[in-house]
């Protein structure tokens, strides 16, 4: 119950911020359009755009969630919530539900644009993979916000968390052409599996890995929430 009330509260906050809602929905589709015109019919577009369907929701939700959670901390609402009957997981799953839903809308729009406007061959599970990617970004955002005291620090976590995953996911250099140790690093980064799920046939196993990483990040985030502080 409290989880649902928390999710509803977060969605109400979003609703009051129309510009953010607009940006959330439009930006991934607009970036896909940019890629489409950039590649100008070259076959590489299909491969890159497919990967981006997974990367955009991940990055955007990571950013939105880490800022949202940081606001809870700095405004004192987090400390206040932790003095109420709310359980830590109520808060985290509340965020998960609310931003998962926002991510679903975003993914639907992006996949629909890719499919119908830009003629991309989108596998059947694309929307689901994109939503799970959004949830992963959100979960990592919640976790990282625990280590950020200021907005400046929170923003610095974007390159730290996102860039290595993007570089090593196989988009720029195929994974089997990388040095062994880079492959090993790539193997433990969840975004690798998100990209694999979009590109290959083994969707369910890769999707399960991504979802598992998201749940793990949520549990770790719960462990970093302290009711008592110095």
């Amino acid at each position: 119950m409290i989880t649902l009330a928390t999710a509803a509260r977060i969605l109400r906050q979003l609703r009051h911020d129309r510009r953010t809602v607009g940006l959330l929905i439009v930006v991934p589709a607009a970036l896909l359009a940019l890629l489409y015109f950039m590649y100008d019919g070259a076959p590489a577009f299909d491969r890159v755009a497919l990967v981006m369907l997974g990367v955009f929701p991940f990055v955007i939700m990571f950013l939105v969630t880490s800022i949202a959670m940081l606001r809870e901390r700095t405004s004192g609402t987090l400390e206040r919530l932790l003095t109420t009957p709310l359980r830590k997981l109520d808060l985290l799953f509340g965020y998960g539900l609310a931003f998962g839903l926002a991510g679903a809308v975003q993914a639907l729009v992006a996949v629909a644009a890719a499919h119908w406007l830009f003629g991309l061959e989108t596998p059947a599970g694309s929307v689901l993979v994109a939503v799970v990617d959004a949830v992963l970004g959100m979960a990592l955002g919640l976790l990282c916000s625990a280590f950020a005291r200021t907005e400046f620090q929170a923003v610095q976590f974007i390159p730290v968390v996102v860039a290595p995953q993007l570089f090593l996911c196989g988009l720029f250099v195929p994974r089997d052409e990388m040095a062994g140790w880079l492959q090993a690093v790539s193997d433990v980064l969840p975004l690798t599996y998100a990209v694999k799920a979009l590109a290959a046939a083994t969707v369910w196993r890769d999707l399960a890995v991504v979802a598992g990483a998201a749940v793990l990040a949520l549990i770790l985030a719960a462990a970093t929430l302290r009711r008592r502080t110095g």
Partner: protein
Amino acid sequence: MDHAVEVRNLVVDRGKRTVLHDITCDIPTGSVTGLLGPSGSGKTTLIRSIVGVQVIKSGTVTVLGSPAGESALRRTVGYVTQAPSVYSDLSVLENARYFAALHHRTAADAERAITDVGLGTAKNQLAGNLSGGQRSRASLACALIGDPKLLVLDEPTVGQDPILRADLWAQFHALAAAGTTLIVSSHVMDEAGRCDRLLLIREGRLVADDPPAAIRAAAGTDDLEQAFLTLIKEASA
């Protein structure tokens, strides 16, 4: 139960500095206790220890018979932080309804709490668009919804005009008459006279723990501000 809160030999460090030195005091049930002292004296740290969000070094804090911060107390202790902690991008009513849901109360309870703090006409405004005084009343409303047995208010009257301040104090006494225990911190001395009991704290040490009349008598003056200055001078002498 005579005492809603019992603090025994409480020591709190923040960083390398000791903020509270061996505080021992009792807060009687159904009273309004004022926590007074200059800024930086440790008022908020004592309040946070009572609410159970402060890491303490030694000593005990017992609230309504349980150790401070016990999960059962989260239903019975209301806490209003110094900076109004409401969601600035939600309306007053949406804020109140969320806190009502956290305490398993209804939307009607949320409306009642808003009316009680005099925000009935502003209930659909975003909290971020309210004046400072209105926002801290919105924050107070969110704490009233759960009908707490202990209500801890950190400087609730800052930024309120004199009429509203009088209204708030009348409300505090009405709550106390109904059995709620209130702890109200303030650095405004003219509010001290409205409390049943006063804790005066300075540099992390308790300087006085008495009803206002006893403090006036001890210092030999009717003016509480003057009385505090006298007590502080005696304590540091």
